Each structure stands twice: as structure tokens, then as C-alpha cells.
């Protein structure tokens, strides 16, 4: 059942076995998997519920409905990095690009060897990954669905012998509408709101939306209940969810805030720290031929030749509204570039960074501190040079950089201007789509928040299951890994049911 908590006339008390907070990649998957195994599950979601019929391709309207704070969330630091995330049933999966990449072996190996996470083996994780991939129909899209902006760069990369390919996606019904990040209007992308959530609801799970989990109550050291609040026109209502297991899946920004506000893990020095975000940027380029980047899969191809250096290139299609802002031009020049929008291609890259940030809060509001380190600035310089080179090799007439102080590049001879400009972090226009790591897994309660079963150290029955659990940045888009861990957690709870229920 999907229930709008705003319709409650009075406060409510519910008994359940499991209360999940947040309905994104972590929460929706663990909730559905547990409901499927016959457990009674209540899911609380702060945002509203929107279905495929509500997704109308208008990016301004969709951003307002589906994104937290109308998408205007940013880090504090230099540069300020835009860090949008979802606030709706389905969480950020509703507005993501649908890319599904498996956790790289090198990352898993590092977690085992450097972090001592010996339980996390390939054999342990891969059955769960396979289950998610099957449920979401993860596969490569056909070439004809890839937007031209993807193919221009992919074909050039292949010609130059760079390791590259087509990204696998959870969008088996994709029609190439080109607006994944504003809610898929055809339902072809299997975000949580069209996959795990309806399936969980069919299995008896109850989803209360417009309800923000606020308080966690314990009794004799054990989980007792979660209190959610609902703002209605007639004031605040509460919903009291009595449960023996609570799974916090509010995302890497809000899970640590929820725990801290409830004085959980006070001895942990890792709570809200260790934030990595995969800072990212994009370049645009003008071509003689029409690109029409609004057609086809926005993020359809990748170049992983430089991933060992922490740089992963991925396709991106930016709507005209965002492009106009990212061009950093003024006057006739900007008008004329925008008049040629159908000839503009964009492509981006993310950095698997060394920088770490932290999350604090003032009341309900999150403050994300993140100051880009020199080593990562160098990665941005290198990534920008490589991508500009690729665009020119693909026949671009001009390349527009994400660096406001620098001019437009007219040919590959201009690329040297990037390095000679002695750029600093604040000179770049950056975005971040993958906050992670703020309730990290570990064996030491002082330097981590959850154990290898995702249970908060020393609080039986309290789990964290979302992007916040990763001990380091993944270097690839995280949703598949989050869902893998969520499936694994459901399995763990099922196998240890007698201990918890």
C-alpha cells in the first residue's frame, strides 16, 4: 500500500517488524526483499509520490517536484559543488541516468586488504548483484538508442584505441526520451518507483510518503520505535512506528544526520566524515553536423582508459537550460551559441577522488563541507585536456570548457591554455551525483559506523543501508553496488530472523 501521510487526520501508531527510512536505491531494495520473504515492512519516505504519468519532460517542473530543495543543494568549500539528490518515492533512482556498473574488483580487493573487510568477497556479493541485474533488466542499450553525442565520442575513442564501450543500464524499456534525470516519461527506466516499490507493495509492504523520520527511540538498549513527522496544512502530525529492526536508508547526506540527531554511535569518529562525492564536470563542443543531444540515451557510453588514474568519462546530455548556464558566456556570443544548440554535444567525466568532506547539520538542514584537494584539481585538468583532445579529434569546431576564466578553444593547439592557466579548484564548475561514505563499514567502532553486516556497532537491530556505508569512493556509478548490499542485508536478516524478530 502507498499511503499519503498528509491525509492523516490525527497521529497514528503502527506495529511492524521492520521500519525502513528512505525509499531510494538502498531502502526500496532491502524493503522489497524482506517483504518478499514474508516480513512485515513499513517504509517511510520524506518526499512525495510521482508515477510515470506525472513525468512530463519539463525539467524545471520536475526538478521542483523530484529533487531536494529544487536541486539547489551545494557543498560549502571552493569550488561550491552542486550536489543534487532526489526527494521522492524511489529516491535518487527516479532522477538518475540508469547506469549500472559492477563494483570494480580493485576496489573490493582494497577494502579487504586495507580495511580488513574480509567478509566482502566476490563470491559473497556477486549472487546479489546478479539478482538485482535480473530484477532491473540491466543490459546494454542498442546502438540506435544512444544519442549522437555518445557515439561521436565513443567512435573517436575506439579509433584512437582507448578502452571504452556502451554502458549497461536498468532501462530495458528505454525509448530514448533523453530525460532520465527528470523522471522517465515512458517507464522504460526501472527506477525504484516502477520496480522494487510496486513489487514490495504487492508483497504487503506499506509505504508512507510525505513522512520524515525524525526520532529513534530505544528501550533497554534495543530498538523500540521510529517517530515520523508529517507537515500538513493543519499543523504537524506524527506517526509512531514500533519495530524491532530499523534500517536507515536516507542517503549519504541524511543518514548520518538522522543518526547524529538521535545520538547514535556517539563514540564513532567516522559518523558524517569520510564523504566522497565523485566530483564531476562536462565539456561541450560545437560540430558542423547536427547532434540533437536531446534524442537518445543521455548517458550511454564510457571511456575507462584512465580509470586507474581516477578519471572515468561518461556520456551526458544537458538540456538547453543547464547548457546556457554552463557555457559561461555573455551577450551576443551566448545567444549565438545557444541558437546552434542542435549542433552541440556534451560529454563528462567523474573523478574518484582523494578529497574527503564531511556532513554537519543545522536543525534539519544539511551542510556539506568539501574542499577539493590539489591532487584532484590535477585530475580535473588532465580530464579536461583529454576530453578537449577527443572532441577535436572527433571534428569539433569549438570546445567550451567548464572553467569560466578560460576562453573557448578553437582548435587542439589551444589545449595548452588549460595547463598554462595554473588553475585552482575554484576555477572549475563542478557537480557531484554520488555522495558516499559517511556511515562507513569497518571493524573498529571508533573508525567506522556499521559492521560488515551493516549493523550499527553496539546497537542491535539498527542498520544502515545506502550509499553512506562505503569505506572509500567506488570510482564508478554506485547504484548497483548499493542495491547489491541491500539485497545482501535482506538475506542476512532472513537467515538470522530468530535473533531479530
Amino acid at each position, binding site marked *: 500500500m502507498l499511503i499519503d501521510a498528509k491525509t492523516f487526520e490525527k497521529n497514528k501508531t503502527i506495529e511492524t517488524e521492520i521500519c525502513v527510512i528512505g525509499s531510494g536505491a538502498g531502502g526500496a531494495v532491502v524493503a522489497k526483499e524482506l517483504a518478499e520473504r514474508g516480513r512485515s515492512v513499513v517504509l517511510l519516505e520524506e518526499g512525495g509520490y510521482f508515477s510515470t504519468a506525472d513525468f*512530463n*519532460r*519539463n*525539467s*524545471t517542473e520536475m526538478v*521542483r517536484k523530484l529533487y531536494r*530543495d*529544487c536541486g*539547489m543543494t551545494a557543498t560549502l568549500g*571552493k569550488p*561550491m559543488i552542486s550536489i543534487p539528490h532526489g526527494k521522492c518515492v524511489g529516491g535518487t533512482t527516479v532522477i538518475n541516468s540508469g547506469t549500472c556498473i559492477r563494483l570494480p574488483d580493485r576496489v573490493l580487493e582494497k577494502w579487504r586488504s586495507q580495511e580488513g573487510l574480509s567478509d566482502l568477497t566476490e563470491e559473497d556479493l556477486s549472487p546479489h548483484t546478479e539478482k538485482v541485474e535480473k530484477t532491473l533488466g540491466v543490459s546494454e542499450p542498442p546502438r540506435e538508442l544512444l544519442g549522437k553525442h555518445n557515439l561521436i565520442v565513443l567512435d573517436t575513442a575506439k579509433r584512437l584505441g582507448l578502452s571504452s564501450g556502451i554502458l549497461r543500464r536498468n532501462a530495458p524499456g528505454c525509448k530514448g*526520451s*533523453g530525460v532520465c534525470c527528470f523522471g522517465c516519461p515512458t517507464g522504460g527506466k526501472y527506477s525504484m518507483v516502477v520496480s522494487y516499490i510496486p513489487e514490495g507493495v504487492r508483497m504487503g509492504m506499506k509505504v508512507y510518503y510525505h513522512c520524515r523520520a525524525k526520532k529513534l527511540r530505544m528501550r533497554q538498549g534495543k530498538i523500540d520505535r521510529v517517530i515520523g513527522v508529517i507537515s500538513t496544512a493543519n499543523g504537524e502530525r506524527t506517526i509512531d512506528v514500533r519495530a524491532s529492526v530499523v534500517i536507515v536508508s536516507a542517503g549519504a547526506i541524511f543518514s548520518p544526520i538522522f543518526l547524529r540527531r538521535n545520538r547514535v554511535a556517539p563514540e564513532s569518529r567516522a559518523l558524517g566524515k569520510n564523504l566522497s562525492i565523485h566530483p564531476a564536470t562536462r565539456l561541450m563542443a560545437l560540430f558542423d553536423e547536427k547532434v540533437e543531444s*536531446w*534524442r537518445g540515451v543521455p548517458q550511454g557510453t564510457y571511456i575507462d582508459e584512465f580509470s586507474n588514474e581516477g578519471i572515468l568519462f561518461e556520456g551526458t546530455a544537458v*538540456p*538547453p*537550460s*543547464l*547548457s*546556457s*548556464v554552463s557555457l*559561461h558566456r*555573455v*551577450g*551576443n556570443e*551566448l*545567444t*549565438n551559441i*545557444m*541558437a*546552434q*544548440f*542542435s549542433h552541440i554535444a556534451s560529454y563528462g567525466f567523474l573523478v574518484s577522488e582523494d578529497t574527503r568532506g564531511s556532513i554537519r547539520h543545522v536543525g534539519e538542514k544539511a551542510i556539506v563541507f568539501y574542499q577539493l584537494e590539489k591532487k584532484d584539481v590535477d585530475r580535473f585538468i588532465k580530464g579536461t585536456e583529454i576530453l578537449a583532445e577527443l572532441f577535436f579529434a572527433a571534428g569539433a569546431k569549438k570546445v567550451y570548457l567548464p572553467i*569560466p*576564466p578560460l576562453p573557448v578553444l578553437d582548435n587542439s593547439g589551444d589545449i595548452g591554455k588549460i595547463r598554462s592557466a595554473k588553475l585552482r579548484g*575554484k576555477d572549475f564548475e563542478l557537480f557531484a551525483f554520488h555522495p558516499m561514505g559517511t556511515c562507513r563499514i569497518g571493524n573498529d567502532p571508533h573508525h567506522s559506523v556499521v559492521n560488515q553486516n551493516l549493523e550499527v556497532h553496539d546497537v542491535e537491530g539498527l542498520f544502515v543501508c545506502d550509499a553512506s556505508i562505503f569505506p572509500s569512493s567506488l570510482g564508478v556509478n554506485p547504484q548497483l553496488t548499493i542495491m547489491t548490499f541491500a539485497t545482501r542485508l535482506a538475506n542476512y536478516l532472513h537467515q538470522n530472523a530468530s535473533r531479530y524478530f
Partner: protein
Amino acid sequence: MSVRLNSREKKLIEIIADALTPPTPSFRLNASDIALGEEVNAVYSLHPWAIRWFFRACLWILEYLSVFRYGRRFSRLSQEEREQLLERWLKSRLYWKQTVVKFATYVILMTKYENDRVRAAIGIPDRRGL
């Protein structure tokens, strides 16, 4: 703080928009043709309080700080001076100047290029046809 922008602010938005992307032979629509001030107002009123406050502050900083350089408010400058000022601030090494101009122009440009008439004028098919 009032949820709605006043008429001076709406006018100022259209002036800034036309300084950022003035009509040219390849694109003839100006900001008042699409009632951009009203449209920004509609979008703006739905934003959280802090964002509304910051946007408004950025508008007024832009309007009045030009006095130090040109002796006149932004809305009284020539088109050329307005473009110069926006460009200088956008590329300024002073971070706060960049932030002010980026934020004000972000809201204005985002709204402008989401407008159906503007999208049609730059060759993007109707959303329903996509």
C-alpha cells in the same frame, strides 16, 4: 520575506536576461516577449525560503554594486556596459562576485531556456513530440 518578486525586480530580471542573451539576427526573442520576469517569479515562488532570499539578494547586489565602477545602477547602464560587467564578474578571481552573478544568471537562464517558445526558436521539437 514576500514570496513574490515586485515589479522592479521582474523588470531587473528582464534587463539582466537581455544583457546575458540579447536578441540577435539568429535569435530574435527578447525577455519581455516571453514575459520572463513573470515566469521567473512563478518558478521562484516555489523555491525554498533560503534560495528565494539569496536570489533576491544577488539581484540587488548586481543592481547596486555597478555604481562603484560606472557611477550608475545596472539597470541604467548601456547594453555594452551591462555585458562587460556580467562578463567581468563571471570571470572574476573574487569568488563572491562569481557566486553572485552565477546564482542570479542561473535562475534567469534556466527559466528562459525552459520556455517552450525559446526552445522552439533554437530548434528543439515540442516536448510531446519527443
